[in-house]
């Protein structure tokens, strides 16, 4: 619906201007233009979760139906967080506004809106911090860069802190490591104290809290989805494959983002997992209670992240598994890698992860006891435990999008590349400034991937898409692979808009395609594309960055 109002790509790009206006930025007034913001939380989700101020409202309305003492609530929350998070306190205090972050944000690069410069996004909070919590600010007010917390400032916060995908690219370039993700998380916590949250975050939260996954799929629905996938695999390979659910005593509990078993193109990667686990004879189980790897709680508050994440260890304990394996997902891995053990550990009831196939000890996961599927699979490949025919992916010319969280919140860069080089013959890297730790966000992460926010998503995704276009033009790349469920859900729309002709896929989709399974009969990939044959039939071109 919002789509038809968006300008053509060239026009949109022409309208981007990085020169800010002459007037200073202290005026907080924002206009809520359709296509650039997300709808407000509906009351039911907030009520279910016991979150504050459930009500019917929308951001473009004048009256946000705030509680009477909202200002006091927010400032009190501000003060509490300054005392609980050193990151927040330090990041409020030490920015020198050197501007190194300014043009590192995909939303700034795609919109030219100066308040999307990470430094200014942080200044939106910092100005209130200075006004209310520093001596200079109390005395000098605006001269010291202070601003009073007014309704307009609050609305500005809402607008811009739901225009940050917590991708942490700015923090790579900041000389002090100031991380806007951290600042955005604080701002969103403050906003949620008075019920100013967005529906695309709180409804999945409520779903996940109740049913175990963001999509609200109930246990029998989950089972149906898995069986559906197994049927598909039978049709594609002729093999009868099993996938245990809620099986006590399995060695490994496998948790994937719910989109993997419910949405395209995630689903093809999901088929890849199932095929792989069948082939290596892995003793694992899915869980219906912990049927969500992702954690929208991270986009809401630390407490909500903890409330949802608790299910992983709880279920691992109940099912008496030895360790956990996690699927392809971005922010899920931020939570698992950087928060889970601290929030819900220690996982002393589990064992240090050892691959039952290769015997490899995953030393790096010995406390949290959860292993990334790319670590697991690359280890299999390294030890020659699976038979791969990369020619089966010859119809794909592949590039790899580093998803923000695994890249900058974990350092998972080589594992997926190693897998890719093993399962396909045509892999091309995007330009250096747009991959690895400098990767650009899809523009839709952190809960912003809605239809109503489409224009902003296309703008935010512009730097990523532009880099894809580069390899598309240069190397005829036609598949953009990634290891994040939000990427897989939102990149297709981005590609359609900026780089038509490029599809989006999972790493484990290509693994599944290339995997030579015992007794299989197949001549198509998971999408039904015919395998196009041996490399002799292929145009000769060098692989880059091998």
């Amino acid at each position, binding site marked *: 619906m919002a789509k038809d109002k968006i300008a053509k790509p*060239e026009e949109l*790009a022409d309208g*981007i201007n*990085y*020169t800010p206006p002459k007037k200073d*930025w202290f005026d907080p007034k924002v206009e809520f233009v359709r296509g650039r913001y997300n709808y407000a939380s509906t009351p039911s989700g907030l009520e279910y979760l016991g979150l504050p101020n459930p009500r019917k409202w929308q951001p473009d309305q004048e009256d946000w139906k705030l509680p009477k003492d909202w200002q006091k609530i927010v400032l009190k929350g501000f003060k509490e967080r300054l005392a*609980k*998070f*050193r*990151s927040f306190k*330090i990041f409020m*205090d030490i920015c*020198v*506004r*050197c*501007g190194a972050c*300014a*043009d590192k944000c995909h939303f700034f*690069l795609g919109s030219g809106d100066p308040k999307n410069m990470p*430094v200014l996004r942080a200044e939106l909070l910092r100005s209130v911090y200075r006004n209310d919590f520093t*001596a*200079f600010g109390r005395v000098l007010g605006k001269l*010291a*860069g202070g601003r009073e917390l007014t309704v307009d400032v609050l609305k500005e916060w809402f607008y811009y802190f739901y225009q940050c995908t917590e991708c942490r690219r700015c*923090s*790579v*370039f900041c*000389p*002090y*490591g100031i*991380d806007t993700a*951290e600042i955005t998380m604080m701002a969103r916590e403050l906003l949620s104290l008075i019920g100013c949250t967005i529906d695309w975050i709180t409804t999945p939260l409520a779903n996940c809290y109740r049913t175990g996954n963001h999509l609200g799929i109930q*246990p*029998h629905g989950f089972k149906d989805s898995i069986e559906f996938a197994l049927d598909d695999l039978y049709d594609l390979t002729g093999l009868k494959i099993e996938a245990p659910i809620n099986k006590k005593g399995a060695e490994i509990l496998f948790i994937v983002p719910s989109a993997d078993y419910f949405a395209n193109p995630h689903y093809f990667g999901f088929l890849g997992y199932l095929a792989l686990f069948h082939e290596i004879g892995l003793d694992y189980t899915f869980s*219906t209670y912990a049927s969500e790897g992702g954690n929208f709680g991270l986009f809401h508050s630390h*407490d909500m992240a903890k*409330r949802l994440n*608790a*299910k992983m260890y*709880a279920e691992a304990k109940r099912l008496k598994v030895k360790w956990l394996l996690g699927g392809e997902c971005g922010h899920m891995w931020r939570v*698992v890698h*950087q*928060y889970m*053990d601290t929030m819900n550990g220690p996982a002393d009831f589990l064992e240090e992860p050892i691959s039952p196939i290769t015997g490899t000890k*995953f030393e*790096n996961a010995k*406390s*949290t*006891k*959860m292993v990334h599927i790319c*670590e697991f699979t690359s280890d299999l490949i390294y030890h020659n435990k699976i038979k791969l025919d990369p020619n089966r992916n010859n119809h794909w010319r592949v590039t790899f999008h580093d998803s923000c969280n695994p890249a900058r*919140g974990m*350092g998972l*860069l*080589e*594992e997926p590349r190693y897998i890719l080089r093993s399962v396909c013959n045509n892999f091309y890297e995007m330009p250096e400034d747009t991959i690895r*730790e*400098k990767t650009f966000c899809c523009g839709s992460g952190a809960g912003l991937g809605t239809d109503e926010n489409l224009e902003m998503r296309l703008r935010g995704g512009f*730097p990523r898409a*532009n880099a894809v276009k580069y390899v598309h033009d240069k190397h005829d790349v036609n598949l953009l692979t990634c290891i994040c469920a939000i990427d897989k859900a939102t990149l297709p729309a981005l590609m359609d808009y900026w780089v038509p002709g490029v599809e989006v896929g999972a790493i484990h989709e290509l693994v599944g395609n290339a995997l030579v399974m015992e007794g299989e009969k197949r001549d198509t990939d998971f999408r039904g594309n015919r395998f196009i044959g041996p490399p002799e039939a292929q145009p000769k071109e060098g692989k880059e960055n091998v």
Partner: protein
Amino acid sequence: MSIFYSLLAITVLILIPIVGVGGLGWRYLFGVIIPYAAFGLFIIGIIYRILLWAKVPVPFKITTTCGQQKSLPWIKNSKLEAPPNSFWTAMRMSSEVLFFRSLFRNSKAQLKPGPKLVYGSGILLWLGAICFHYSFLVILIRHFRFFIGPTSKFIEIVSGLDSFFQIGLPILYITDLVILIALTYLLLRRFLSPQLKYISLAADYFPLFLLLCIALSGTTMRYFTRIDIVAVKELGMGLAGFHPVIPDNLSLMFFIHIFLVSSLIAYFPFSKLMHMGGIFLSPTRNMANDNRKRRHINPWNPKVEVHTYEEYEDEFREVMKNAGLPLEKEE
């Protein structure tokens, strides 16, 4: 506006010693009392700020990884950018503190027709920052000679290297020139780049003006109006030895210089200049990327309400049973 107010503040700061010393002759106040007070404020302010930060816990290990994690033994770990342990974290911090590693990555994005986003070099900011900070450090070390009796070999070597080219008399210190150029660059970019101008506050212009005036007054004194440095050292030694004296032979320019320096150190702990201490405490840089290997403890880890499996099964028992899923309780 913020430029105007910063300039105004600087002008006032320069006028104060002109009136106070030049007009009223309050040499003891400006030569002894104010420097002592400013230094006291500096020390106490820094301790206060650092302790204020130290009091706040680091609840999560939120390292920003800028390279390959340590995972499987055959994958090369980028130790400096994703430190696997505290030794490499110290190395990473050193590279940040000593070489401004992260700033070194700086690039400049440009939108070309096509549309095509290209990323050019942004190294100038790094260069300006490095030049300024190291010049400042060398100048600071050089100034120690005014406070130490028999000067140490170390200061002699630093000063000797700094005057390596033996240009002019008194010999030109290279850092004097470099710091003026670097400060001018850092200031000019705030004036000339529209983005920088937009984000700059009075708190950004003021320290630059202040530093520039300090450097200008200092270099003027050394190279142009000149000063009796024996007298300066008598004052310095008196201050450092807590038996302050005010020698006669000190010029007004000298009083302007030390008043501005006093202003700087008094302002320091309460300003963005505290990034000097803050960089050491930045949670995205000063922790190892060993999250899954070593558990990080959150001292205030809250108890939160969770939806337990029992509650879940109670709600979905019927459908689970019908789907043939295993149950904990049949009823």
